[in-house]
């Protein structure tokens, strides 16, 4: 096998590929060939590095130089300068926003300093389309160990002792789930991997599947052995073509290697995995809805119990875990439960992957130990708020999480603390909002999503969320009364209390948490007819200051609806009944005479 002196790792995640990542790979290979360095330099397409804000990313091994915002045109220079001449390409280095210094080694970047990568251990490190690299990183060793040296009960005990909890949102102890499914009698049992990542802006699971598909396959096989099942199903959304492609390659390779299929490791244990495609319904992330969808039925949940552990896919005992949960399993088996449980907090062990998004400098995918504070995540890892604006709120837990404020910044991130302050862990979405965001509009935005994604089975979710949205809409338009706020809160509570599945039981969270934490904004809309953040168009009024206005007529000429009148050299007036609040006049005024009230 060829041995290279240099590896060039190019991010092959969906985000970087969209920014011409494939061309970067091609150009780098071409440049390597042009310099006759093929026998020394290997160009590797890996999974996501997480620092998506700075993508496409190219990492030089062995000196760990981390190039950001790389374009295909930079490929020649990277090879000729960095590799031939040994000079770093400074303009492609990351610049520390605090010190303005170039940082070449990613380990010295604030973004990576506080991260611990367990689930993402192989993402951005190995070529996901090459099982050899996975095996070289102890791949399938955990499966081999479990099959050759342990009983299912012993393996389950390790998972139980590790304290791993479901990473899909619910936080149910994984080992316990396996144990329950193990104990249910059944000749046929199923292992299902929930890869129906539906939170807007979240891509934890996608990154794992794109960057390290084998870790999930290995964990599913381990799970199969533990529960006594030999059929694995991955329910993945069809909108993840790259993850699907990499999974298909991985499954083929694993079968060829004999770590999937019949008589694995000569132990007589058989396990194989099939893919099932989801059509992108958010509710199909709920395990009973997911199972119905896989069965070819309408994707809607059923009341639990019975839990899938007892009666799941085709009525058989079924263990459903999410991608990130599975990705943790092989390492836990290899390194032991003590190692894993030493990370995190008392009740939430290990790490959690979050997708950082919103008004934050370092948008991307991070993996941090449980118990880290929101402040560390947002300000240290995330690099603080964009454009020097003021932090207002952070929403965790996807569309049905709650909006937390400044006062929550120092709580440790774990399942129970987040729940206690009105939000939730969810699958790991984290959206940061700044002073320009209107919290009523934010709540409305999330409700818009849940209204769209409700399956329609139960009345509170089907109709209630729609009504929540309508009331919020009324508030943002300035048509609501204080009585409406009472109706809104009661309705939100009833939906939470009576809905059939997790979707409806959590969808009012954005409303309730913003009402709890930002009541003054609601009241400003309702009582004063004002949107403090200046976001609600219907509550804005463009006004001309008669003192500052010199009567240049520019605004009147630019107004598309002729809402501005006035004589030359006389102060102009905006007819607010005609004004469509496009803002063209304000942009045009040279005398700062037009303002929003």
């Amino acid at each position: 096998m060829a041995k290279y002196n240099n590896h060039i790792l190019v991010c092959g995640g969906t985000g970087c590929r969209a920014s011409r990542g494939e061309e970067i790979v091609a150009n780098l290979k071409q440049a390597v060939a042009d310099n006759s360095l093929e026998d020394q330099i290997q160009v590797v397409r890996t999974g996501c590095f997480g620092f998506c804000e700075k993508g496409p990313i190219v990492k030089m091994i062995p000196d760990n130089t981390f190039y950001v915002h790389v374009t295909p045109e930079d490929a020649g220079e990277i090879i000729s300068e960095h590799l031939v001449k040994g000079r770093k390409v400074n303009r492609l280095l990351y610049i520390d926003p605090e010190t303005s210094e170039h940082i070449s080694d990613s380990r010295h970047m604030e973004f990576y300093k506080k991260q611990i990568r367990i689930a993402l251990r192989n993402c951005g490190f190995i070529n996901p389309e090459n099982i050899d690299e996975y095996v070289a990183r102890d791949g399938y060793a955990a499966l081999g160990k479990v099959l050759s040296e342990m009983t299912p009960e012993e393996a389950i005990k390790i998972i139980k002792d590790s304290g791993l909890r479901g990473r899909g949102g619910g936080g149910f102890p994984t080992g316990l789930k396996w144990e329950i499914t193990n104990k249910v009698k059944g000749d046929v049992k199923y292992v299902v991997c929930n890869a129906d990542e539906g939170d807007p802006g979240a891509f934890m699971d996608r990154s794992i599947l794109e960057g390290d598909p084998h870790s999930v396959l290995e964990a599913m096989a381990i799970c199969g052995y533990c529960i006594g099942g030999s059929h694995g199903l991955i329910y993945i959304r069809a909108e993840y073509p790259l993850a699907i492609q990499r999974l298909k390659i991985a499954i083929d390779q694993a079968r060829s290697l004999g770590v999937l299929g019949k008589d694995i490791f000569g132990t007589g244990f058989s396990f194989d995995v099939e893919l099932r495609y989801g059509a992108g319904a958010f509710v199909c992330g709920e395990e009973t809805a997911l199972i119905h969808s896989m069965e070819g039925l309408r994707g809607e949940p059923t009341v639990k119990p019975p839990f899938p552990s007892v009666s799941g896919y085709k009525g058989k005992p079924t263990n459903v875990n999410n991608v990130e949960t599975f990705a943790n399993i092989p390492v836990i088996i290899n390194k032991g439960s003590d190692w894993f449980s030493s990370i995190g907090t008392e009740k939430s062990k290990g790490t959690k992957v979050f997708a950082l998004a919103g008004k934050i400098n370092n948008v991307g995918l991070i993996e941090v130990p449980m118990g880290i504070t929101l402040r560390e995540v947002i300000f240290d890892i995330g690099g603080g708020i964009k454009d020097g604006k003021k932090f207002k709120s952070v929403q965790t837990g996807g569309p049905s999480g709650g909006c937390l404020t400044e006062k929550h910044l120092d709580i440790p991130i774990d399942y129970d603390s987040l729940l206690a302050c009105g939000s939730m862990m969810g699958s790991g979405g984290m959206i940061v909002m700044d002073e320009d965001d209107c919290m009523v509009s934010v709540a409305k935005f999330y409700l818009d999503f849940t209204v769209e994604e409700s399956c329609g089975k139960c009345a509170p979710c089907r109709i209630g969320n729609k009504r929540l949205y309508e009331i919020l809409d009324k508030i943002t338009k300035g048509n609501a009364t204080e009585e409406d706020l009472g109706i809104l809160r009661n309705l939100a509570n009833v939906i939470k209390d009576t809905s059939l599945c997790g979707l409806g039981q959590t969808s009012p969270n954005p409303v309730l948490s913003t009402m709890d934490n930002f009541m003054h904004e609601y009241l400003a809309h309702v009582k004063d007819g004002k949107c403090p953040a200046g976001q609600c168009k219907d509550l804005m009024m463009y006004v001309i200051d008669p003192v500052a206005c010199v009567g240049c007529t520019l605004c009147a000429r630019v107004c598309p609806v002729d809402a501005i009148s006035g004589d030359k050299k006389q102060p102009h007036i905006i007819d607010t009944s005609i004004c469509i609040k496009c803002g063209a006049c304000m942009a045009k005024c040279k005398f700062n005479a037009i303002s929003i009230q």
Partner: protein
Amino acid sequence: MAKVKTLDDLKRMREGLQSKISLREKSDHPEKIVQIKVSMATCGIASGAKETMTYLIEELDNRAVEAVVTQTGCMGYCHSEPTIEVHVPGTDPVVYGDVDIKKAEEIITKHIIGGELVDGIIPAAYKTPNEHRNEK
């Protein structure tokens, strides 16, 4: 692809494959292993830095020394090319000049494996660890 039949098969396979990504593993925690930087500017390359580097990589690997060899730009010692910097964990980095293959072999045997400095350190005023200790 041959199927793995036992856990031992897998372990053997892994051993064979590990060198494939060991470079990446090493670069992940370079402070824990021997780091060697080879000056690879025009002057260095002209003086045989490339050959030295290839030798270092292969020989360290043969002797199973956990090390990472990287190229770097001109160190400014154009008179003594090829120059390399050797950094053994827990000690200060040392720069050697005029490192041909023979010298490289000596550095590996004596310095990296044996733990004692060898001749050829630049600048000439460099103090050996013993001298450091004496000062303290």
